[in-house]
């Protein structure tokens, strides 16, 4: 059952990702990526990371991708199809990425994952547990990430704000 769900979800993920990568229209890419993110959320649920799945949908599909959509539409990018790279470069890119995949696989193929066991649903993925971790052990990174946000915020405003001249 799980395997079946996994396989179907994975197929959807991969197909939508492929569509995202190869679509010439930015709008289609955005939409397929949103779809892809939903399938990833499905994987999270499959892995008993329910809270994360929700957050994922909210943050990625709800915020990030909307931002993308917004920009695509703002800049009116969807009217013309994207330019594509030269054939030679694309072949090189395919070979490069393919090689990366092969090399990673070759390196990882002998991995034994003996220390891993079946994931019990012990509430690990629920909001209480994750929240506890975040505000105890991970309190410092949590606070530090606020600096990151602050910085990004200032930056986004700095870069995108129209100057009053």
């Amino acid at each position, binding site marked *: 059952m799980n395997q079946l769900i996994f396989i179907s979800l994975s197929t959807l993920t991969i197909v939508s990702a492929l569509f995202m990568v190869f679509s010439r229209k930015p709008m289609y890419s955005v939409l397929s990526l949103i779809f892809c993110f939903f399938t990833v959320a499905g994987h999270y649920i499959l892995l008993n990371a329910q809270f994360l799945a929700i957050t994922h949908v909210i943050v990625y599909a709800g915020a990030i991708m909307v931002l993308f959509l917004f920009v695509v539409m703002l800049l009116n990018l969807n009217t013309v199809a994207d330019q594509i790279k030269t054939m030679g470069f694309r072949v090189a890119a395919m070979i*490069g990425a393919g090689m*990366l995949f092969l090399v990673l696989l070759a*390196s990882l193929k002998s991995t034994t994952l003996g220390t891993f066991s079946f994931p019990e649903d012990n509430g690990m993925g629920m909001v209480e547990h994750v929240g506890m971790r975040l505000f105890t052990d991970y309190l410092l990174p949590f606070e530090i990430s606020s600096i990151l946000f602050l910085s990004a915020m200032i930056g986004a405003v700095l870069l995108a704000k129209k100057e009053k001249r």
Partner: protein
Amino acid sequence: MTFLGLMIPLLPLLGFLVNGLLGKYLPKGSAGWIGSLSVLASFVCVLLIFKDLQAEQAISIDVFNWIALGDFSISFGLWIDALTMIMLMVVTGVGFLIHLYSIGYMHGDEGFTRFFTYLNLFIFFMLLLVMGSNYLMMFIGWEGVGLCSYLLIGFWYKNEPFNDAAQKAFVMNRIGDLGFLLGMFFILFHFGTLDIQTVEQLAPGLASNGGLIMIITLLLFIGATGKSAQLPLYTWLPDAMAGPTPVSALIHAATMVTAGIYMIVRSNVLFALAPDTLTIILWVGVITSLFAAIIGLKQNDIKKVLAYSTVSQLGLMFVALGLGAFSSGIFHLVTHAFFKALLFLGAGSVIHALHGEQDIRKMGGLKKLIPITYITFILASLAISGFPLLSGFFSKDEILAHAFEQNKIVWIVVAVSSFLTAIYMFRLVFLTFFNNFRGSDETRSHIHESPWTMTFPLVVLCILAVLGGLIGLPAIFHVSHWLNTYLASVTEPSAALIHHGDGISHGLEIGLMCFAGLAAIVAIYLMYRKYVMQKAIPESEESQQGFIKAIANKFYVDEFFENAIVNPVFKLSEWFGTFFDKKIIDQIVNRTATTITSGGQALRLSQGGNTGTYVLAMVIGIVVLFIIRLLI
């Protein structure tokens, strides 16, 4: 004695310093007197020492320790023994006369002071050469006289060929000097000292190492050939006539060029231990003597004739040395110093009278115009030609006798060359002094006898040239050979080592003497007939042909050296300088740099500005690193 010994070289040095440093503050013309008197004073010191010093005695003066390091030390030392005494007397005596002569000869020259400065310096170095107690001291003098020779040949430095001649003299001497230097290294290495006396004492002990002694002596002999103008290093001497005539008389006839002979006699034990070297010396002397005499036959420059004559006579001295007759060599050295100095001074007087004319074809008939010069010159010519009972007759005869005794072929060649000596000398005499003057009338009207400062030395030297033979009268006169006796303490150690001939009978000796005298007279007569009676004058260069032309052109030896050595070296220099150094070595350096920069340029172009390419490079980089990681 020590003080006097020290004063001998120091007085000329003082003269040099006074003239050199204060010359321009002194009254004009005083330089000549300062120079001459300093040498005279030195001569007086020599005489004082000579008076007291017994023949077998020697004075050793250690001035200070010059170089002392490791296991050897070389002192700045002087050594005076019989041989030195002879040389000292020649150097200071003849030197003084020539200084005196120069006062008149150089009168009015703008470099008057400079001339005497150099001349005094020369005397100083020459004295160091003969007085040095070790080879290095000798070498100081050896190079020092070379320097003075250089300075004096190029005395009239505005004249380019004179400068070339000076440079040639110095460089050719340096070739010999390298031999000398290497010889010294061998001595120093194997004997552990450069002290001549010590070396002479130790030499027999090392005689078993025959090759070693031979190498040393050969190297020393190379030095001697350079300084004493023997084949093949003689070509500088004729060119050296560019210097003022007193210089030719002093340096290039009487003193410096005999340094080689002095050096060999000084190291006679070493040479006696190397019979092969002696043979080489013998043949070099023989060939040089004949070769130079032949060239002398066809020279038209009054000084060039004398120069080749000098080379030839020096060859004769080497013959004596090669025969192991060291004192005979010295004997001829002394007499030669007298008559050749006289000849040069006479020639100088002629040139002085003719305002610089040196070509004998433009002279003639001078005997009445400059009588003192004429008389002294002709006596000197007779002496060098071996006219009986004059000094040259005895000294030359002694060598001929030794030659006859040991090697008939040598005797024949040497006899021929002395015959030729008479020929070219009297060709010179007759062309210069007899018949009518061939120059312009304008010149003719100015000809006058030289002042006393010039004629006095001529007369004194003439007396010496005539009577000089008395110091070495042969046994047939039933008097002791004074020079041989006097030098015995020096030459004796070697005498035992040399296989002399059986000696020749008195009768044979008289026969030889008569033969030699007769030959000289015949030669003189032949020349008289040709140049006085037939009034022949030498042909111009263009009309000469064949062998005669070769002789007149000095057998093209200079050209040979020019083309075989000098030009190739210059070519090599240009090739090294403009091609090898710049195009090969430097290019390797520069190319390394340009290769690196062009590598930089190529790598720079990989940075094309395209983000995709950059990322691709990163991906490939990761892949490659993974592959490396997987493979190793």
